[in-house]
């Protein structure tokens, strides 16, 4: 049997927001949990993020936004991935996201949104479960 591939994650900061404490903490926690993690750094356009995700052949994109631009930026990344035939890449989100925005984000293809105070274990478990289920790995 083939050895199980490690989950590859792109942690990305879309838009102009520079708050990346959360993104860095999550990136490190995922790495410590055995995933392969790439962090884009701040101020990435959705186009840059989609391109990097495809080039790096990741399973998951984790988007972090604290500026309030999530409703615009998160679905854009999902759309761009789909348009380039990479709809199998799962998109997660986190940041300062009002509760009432979450259903619409999920409808537009964001798998899960993590709000402030979320434990990194919960993020690790959710990503692992979703990747296994959807990719049948």
């Amino acid at each position, binding site marked *: 049997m083939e050895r199980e591939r490690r989950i590859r994650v792109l942690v990305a900061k879309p*838009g*102009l*927001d*520079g*708050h*990346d*404490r959360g993104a*860095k*903490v999550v990136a*490190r*926690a995922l790495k410590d949990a055995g995933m392969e993690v790439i962090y884009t*750094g*701040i*101020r990435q*356009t959705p186009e840059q993020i989609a391109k990097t995700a495809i080039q790096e052949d990741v399973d998951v994109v984790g988007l972090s936004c604290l*500026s*309030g*631009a999530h*409703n*615009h*930026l998160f679905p854009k990344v999902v759309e761009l991935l789909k348009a380039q035939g990479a709809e199998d890449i799962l998109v997660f989100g986190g940041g*300062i996201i*009002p*509760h*009432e925005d979450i259903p619409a984000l999920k409808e537009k293809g964001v798998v899960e949104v993590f*709000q*402030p*105070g979320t*434990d*990194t*274990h919960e993020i690790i478990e959710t990503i692992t479960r979703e990747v296994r289920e959807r990719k049948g790995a």
Partner: protein
Amino acid sequence: MKDDLTTLRSAKETWESETVAKTLKKFPERKAEFSTTSGITMARLYTPLDVASQDYLGDLGFPGQYPYTRGVQPTMYRGRFWTMRQYAGFATAEETNRRYKFLLDKGQTGLSVAFDLPTQIGYDSDHPLSSGEVGKVGVAIDSLADMEILFDGIPLDKVSTSMTINATAAMLLAMYIAVAEKQGVDSKILRGTIQNDILKEYAARGTYIFPPKESMRIITDIFAYCKDHLPKWNTISISGYHIREAGSTAVQEVAFTLADGIAYVQAAIDAGLDVDAFASRLSFFFNAHSNFLEEIAKFRAARRMWARIMKERFKAKDSRSMRLRFHTQTAGSTLTAQQPENNIMRVTLQALSAVLGGTQSLHTNSWDEAYALPSEKSVTIALRTQQVIAYETGVADSIDPLGGSYLIEKLTEEIEEKANEYIARIDEMGGAVKAIEAGYIQREIADSAYQFQMEVEKQERIIVGVNQFRQEEPPLEDVLRITGDVERYQIEKLKKVKAGRDATRVAQTLDRLKEAAKGTDNLVPVILDAVKAYATLGEISGALREVFGEYRES
């Protein structure tokens, strides 16, 4: 005295070996070791033994006197309270102007402008990168026309205004000067602050545009310009706030902030300015976090350290150059989305630590900010919190009321000592600019942030409502929302401004700016000309981008 200490030491040992030991056998303490966020061990008890080496006059002195440990003014809050200054700004200049009038009407004593990210990074509202960000984290300002609306009906000779603006500080300051001029107010009497602290943008906050060298030149140009034209203006607010928000400890906050301060002072001296000609207009900005006693000690330590740095390292002669005046904001990162009403108590305690630490002005966060920008109701509670501390508790009636506490004095010393170790390390690396370029400061902050999160997850640090005392609750609804209409409205307004201005004059001022940027002329007057011609923020920043290039995080 020595005999007294010997007696005391042996009495303390007896107390520990007999009284305490007996209790410990029956009731062990909650933890094997207690420590602050900076890893400073908290002793069971502090006594005169802990401050035996302190020299009152040398280490503490009197308020308004070197080394300013006890406060920068001789009477502190007995004269007047700190400035109550709520950071606010969202959507359009029209809406934010209404919020300012609302806050002033509720008894706020100074303004503090939050700009949206495109304004902070030098893009107009119609730039592709601004899409989705317009008016979100602050007010959108594209040109002088917006700034005129923002301060409409607010007399700039009466209020002091703080602006959280860094890479584009020169442009926004120029707009403020231009609005004042239209109101008939001489720039010489304008009071306020621009943040203008680019180093912490590279290290922690992210709204940089130009490379460090060019950014430092703009900053020293501002110092030089304000010295002659805006003598009452705080030309920089050297900020630990965002360093702390990014995850640093209290010690790192002080160390990295003062290291940045050292870099600015050195840059200005290297640019030919006399230290006493600009240093009195430097101001600082700290975070008030949750570890109450450590925070109070932190503010005191920062004051003493800066006084010593200015006197000993930079040979300042004017005592005003040695005074660390600071603004404080309660810690946004400690606000929880869970049981958010508890944030009111967190903010109260943090605000109290800032007042006990001798802050000059204060912003108290609103309880709903883990979700969105604050509502009018929540921002009123935040302001009222300051008013309760000021008017009801009596803590402002005597200066530095915790000075002389064995614990506070010892902790102040330990923070100074540990922060000085960091500063020495940064000096060895060639200063703050080099340390940031090498990623050292960013790594230190990220390590502390990760460690903190792990401690929370292991329940070594308890956050009420998050990792203990949790409860089911309905999600918070009806938070303040900024819609896409703001962006469309702003873009329309921008079109009108561009249609109504003298295009030739705009082009000329922008050309002149590029020429000045290539040479060594002070950029501020040139930017002021462009602003008055209604050149947009994006155009002015664009002209400088062409000459200076852009910084990219490595």
